[in-house]
């Protein structure tokens, strides 16, 4: 190919690249951007669709919400690829705080997990009353159980429950979905299997899931959400002011009121109980 053509093509490519990169937010805008790493449950329940516009209006920041499993959300924050984290795995969170990767852990809200399963309840999990007892019964009956298997907050809680039950879940009855809560509920429903789900997603899926709640109201099933700021030392370009602004927003009285009333209209009950300022051992179901 002649040299002048090479140059022409190169120039066109450069121009196109410039057009497309200048079209998006430049660096100036990015400083007003807060990256929130959070869990799928806050997004799938629709809560963030209500809260984020409020925050943007109040502060002028623009929020990029990355909703992934809690494990990944925390890992992203620890690498400095987010400015603030809103997650629900207290044991994991405390490790990150102890390591100095995340700062100023504050409780925001809670709801609860429930154990659901086949109506006929072959493992008699319903009789167990406690979550740990129910899991033990499921394992003894080798009844199908679908696990998130994705290191999400729900999965972390499930693993802790198995540990308390003194059982290592293994075998054909233990199905690891590796997907979000909605997809996992779908698999459990199709396989007529047991699973653990947060109440919010379970309610949101409504009649798509025909498995009834078998165990609820156990303190071990509390699902506690906390907000943490990312340590600016984790990496370059962390918007720590923006991260702190979002964390402050989540525990502000006005926001907590919005959280309290969220879901009443659609589901006839609140999906989350706001608990800013409280300590974990003060919570009850």
């Amino acid at each position, binding site marked *: *190919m*002649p040299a*002048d*053509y*090479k140059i022409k*093509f190169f120039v*066109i*490519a450069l121009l*196109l*690249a410039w057009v*497309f*990169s200048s*079209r*998006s*937010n430049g*660096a100036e805008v*990015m400083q007003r951007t807060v*990256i929130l790493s959070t869990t*799928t449950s806050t*997004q*799938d329940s*629709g809560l963030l*669709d209500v809260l*984020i516009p409020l925050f943007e209006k109040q502060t002028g920041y623009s929020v*990029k*919400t*990355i*909703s992934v499993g809690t494990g990944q959300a925390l890992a992203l924050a620890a*690498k*400095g*690829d987010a400015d603030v984290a809103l997650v629900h795995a207290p044991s994991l969170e405390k490790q990150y705080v102890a390591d100095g990767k995340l700062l100023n852990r504050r409780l925001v809200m809670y709801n609860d997990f429930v154990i659901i399963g086949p109506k006929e309840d072959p493992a008699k999990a319903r009789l167990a009353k406690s979550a740990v007892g129910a899991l033990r019964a499921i394992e003894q009956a080798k009844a199908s159980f679908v696990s998130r298997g994705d290191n999400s907050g729900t999965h972390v809680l499930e693993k802790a429950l198995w540990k308390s039950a003194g059982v290592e879940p293994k075998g054909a009855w233990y199905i690891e979905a590796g997907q*979000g*809560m*909605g*997809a996992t*509920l*779908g698999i459990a429903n199709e396989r007529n299997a047991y699973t653990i789900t947060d109440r919010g997603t379970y309610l*949101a*899926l*409504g009649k*798509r*899931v025909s498995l009834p709640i078998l165990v609820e109201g156990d303190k071990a099933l509390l699902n506690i959400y906390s907000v943490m700021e990312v340590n600016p030392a984790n*990496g*370059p*370009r*962390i918007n720590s002011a923006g991260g702190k602004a979002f964390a402050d927003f989540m525990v502000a009285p006005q926001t907590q009121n919005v959280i309290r009333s969220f879901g009443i209209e659609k589901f006839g009950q609140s999906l989350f109980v706001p608990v800013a300022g409280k300590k974990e051992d003060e919570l009850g179901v």
Partner: protein
Amino acid sequence: MELIWQGVQKAIELVFGFDAEVWAITWLSLKISGGATLLSLSLGIPLGIALALTRFPGRSIIAALINTGMGLPPVVVGLFVSIFLWRSGPLGFLELIYSPSAMVLAQVIIALPIVAGLTMASFQNLDPKLGLQLLGIGASRAQLLWLLCKEARLPLLAAVMAGFGGVISEVGASMMVGGNIRGQTRVLTTATVLETGKGNFDVAIALSLILLALTFAINFFLTRIQQGEQRRWPRLS
């Protein structure tokens, strides 16, 4: 089956009710994948032509790499682009992660080998004597290239369609580098995944149908250009 019907109804409701969010998502899908396709064409066609018409050391390795790249898994592209673009990554200073530009970049990486590979194949399929003839009747090298492009236009249009089809339909890379952010990087495929996760199967089906209709419309347009120009074969019967 009833669910699919609900999805069809929902699609009609969203499209003809001019649901602002759905239209914005559709438009963004088109802008990102259309832009990525244009960029891939402007880079991939010259690359494919160069590989087809010239000989240089390492040519066959590059050609083999491009042919392999035609099947690049979008999630793999998404993972590596993310690693580079994360703030903690080597290109973090560009602050492109979770932006439409990042999605264009990932999609160019997916579509470029498809365009370059098909361009290369279509130019290699041209009769080398054609080039000699054109030069013989006094064509300049620029005119030669232009005439060869015209000669290869049918397979070149196929390359356009394959490149666009590859990126408008992918979800793995868009999800990872775009983040599926509402109003910023949510496109038809990532919105479909989200709505399925939320259990809004009717909306998910509606979005899928919109995606199918969009790709069909674009391919129909390109096919009309392609087939309208097709040489007539003598009647075979």
